[in-house]
């Protein structure tokens, strides 16, 4: 699978261009299976460097109301784990590194090894695991290593120095730094916790650091890009599709505009 793009290569490309990478998130199956694939491809075309495919889950404790609503809609429409893998395959075909962001129980249920194998075969680059810390991740680390998948664990402003060192040592691809103490969702002002956290992460690892939670416009993206290697945006994309409702073309156009604005932002920072 050596032709499978990895997230670290996207960050390296961005760094070579003197900018931060733009990481965009949408849940699979939202607004429906095909609509999600179209939306993610539109985000790629308009400037996302990495795509996160969310696996819709019944109990998303790290997500705010916007992503909860999208995930619930996807689940009610019958989105299955296998659909998430197929979505990854369709998006990864664009050549952009594509990872899955998932709470842990669906992976455990699918089978950790089987999930890793199917994700790798679909061209997926790895997993972001918001409720799985390395302390609990023995099976996943083994499967990821076997299938050469990125292991993207989260760090938080509350993480101790010891936990930052331990967690980043277990990461491959990039480190996901949560900018605020809180759940996903757009915020008006950027966090003053993110900069110090990124500095603390850089002290313990050479991996690129992506910052997520709260970024929704180009100015915020530029602000984060001034100190981080990547800007991660989720709820703002979901919001565009929720607001467009049944107007699919309008939703896609809105997504493209937001992606372009954020892509401009990460080049300004």
């Amino acid at each position: 699978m050596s032709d499978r793009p990895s997230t670290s290569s996207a960050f390296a490309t961005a760094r070579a261009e003197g900018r931060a990478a733009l990481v965009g998130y949408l849940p699979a199956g939202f607004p429906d299976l095909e609509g999600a694939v179209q939306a993610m491809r539109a985000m790629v075309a308009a400037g996302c460097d990495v795509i996160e495919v969310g696996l819709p889950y019944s109990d998303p404790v790290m997500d705010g109301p916007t992503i909860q609503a999208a995930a619930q809609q996807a689940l009610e429409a019958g989105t299955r784990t296998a659909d998430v893998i197929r979505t990854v395959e369709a998006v990864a075909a664009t050549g952009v590194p594509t990872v899955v962001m998932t709470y842990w129980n669906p992976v455990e249920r699918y089978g950790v090894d089987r999930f890793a194998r199917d994700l790798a075969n679909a061209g997926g680059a790895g997993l972001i695991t918001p409720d799985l810390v390395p302390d609990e991740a023995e099976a996943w680390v083994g499967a990821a290593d076997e299938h050469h998948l990125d292991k993207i664990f989260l760090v938080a402003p509350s993480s101790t120095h010891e936990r930052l060192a331990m967690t980043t040592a277990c990461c491959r691809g990039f480190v996901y730094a949560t900018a605020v103490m809180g759940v996903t969702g757009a915020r008006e002002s950027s966090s003053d916790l993110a900069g110090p956290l990124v500095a603390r992460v850089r002290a313990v690892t050479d991996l690129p650091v992506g910052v997520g939670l709260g970024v929704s416009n180009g100015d915020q993206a530029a602000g984060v890009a001034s100190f981080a290697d990547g800007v991660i945006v989720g709820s703002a994309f979901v919001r565009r599709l929720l607001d467009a409702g049944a107007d699919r073309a309008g939703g896609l156009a809105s997504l493209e505009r937001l992606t372009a604005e954020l892509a401009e932002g990460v080049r300004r920072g």
Partner: protein
Amino acid sequence: MPDLAPPPAVTSPGADGRFGRFGGRMMPEALMAALDELTVAWLDAMQDPAFTAEFERMLRDYAGVPSLLYDATRLSERAGARILLKREDLNHTGAHKIRNVLGQALLTKRMGKHRVIAETGAGQHGVAAATAAAYLGLDCVVYMGEVDTERQALNVARMHLLGAEVVAVRSGSRTLKDAINEAIRDWVSSVDHTAYLFGTAAGPHPFPSMVRDFCRGIGDEARAQCLQLTGALPDSAVACVGGGSNAIGLFAGFVDDESVQLVGCEAAGDGVDTMRHAATIYARQFGVLHGARTFVLQDEDGQTKESHSISAGLDYPGVGPEHAYLAESGRASYRPITDAQAMDAFSLLARVEGIIPAIESAHAVAGALEIAAEQPGSTILVNLSGRGDKDMGTAIEWFGLGATEPDDDAGEPAGPPGEGSGNNAPGEPQE
């Protein structure tokens, strides 16, 4: 091959908080430092005689603990076995839960935090948490599914009166599991000044062990009381299991006594062969929910399924990890009790002993009646974990009780329990 050596006693899990393959901390990194801090503070407090003395003083002077052990002779006569009831229904706020919230709230104060949050299903843990917060001068926010706030308006009013803010949760199934999700979301944002008073012996380490230890007075008291009353240990110790706090508190007192059978009674709802039940251990599906590896009612993709029980306190699709461990090791057994069995026991206990139990606790009484039939003449100690005042709305609906307003369309007057309900009338001989 099964290991025939006796399993370890109710465990003191290692630093990782695991009970065999169950437990652990399946939580966001943002909460790890707080969970570590809580673990250290709890272990430190339990070694501090000043803390344990104050906890015991509050339980004794404020909560009415130790509760009585009652020799239920009339129920025993009907059952054909000696049934002893540990009267946790007589505690302040009407259930065992006051033990847990007083312990956690006292620990909150010791940690210098001033705000507590809690989740609640029917409202019992929410009322208990609001009570402890009022007593100890803490701010309190209770998360409650919107469906439950409508079903349990009286408990919402109680919490308001006690000074708590009640947040109606509108996400997901809008019931207990979603209230827990929302409380976790709050905690991720507020963890520097807020403690999460978790309501049951589930969740991430240290909650399963900490809640057990705050509740273990149930078992320790009952063991001493039983020895004093009967001169011997009971043959079985029985409790209902939703998340499992009252059961693990009872079992903790007897787990080292190999002769005592530990029996948990799960809510089987309409029956375990239907889709509508909450018998998590019976279903035996390994997974992750609310921070722990345990048994979880889930679909084939690992999405949590909605549980069902007539008893809101048992209506939860997960179970505490130590119960999963005790079930798998064989030290404890768990049996499903249907809504109908529980309501029959609810009615029977009211009629023959003059005690209206919580419907949760009625599941344990029903389990004891089954055990009595299997082991006649044995001594069965039942934890009567709560009182049934809160359940009268359900009882009115189930039995057709108390309709006094004239209604020309009703056709028939409301009858006594059992009539027209499809259940055995309580006064008739039971199988």
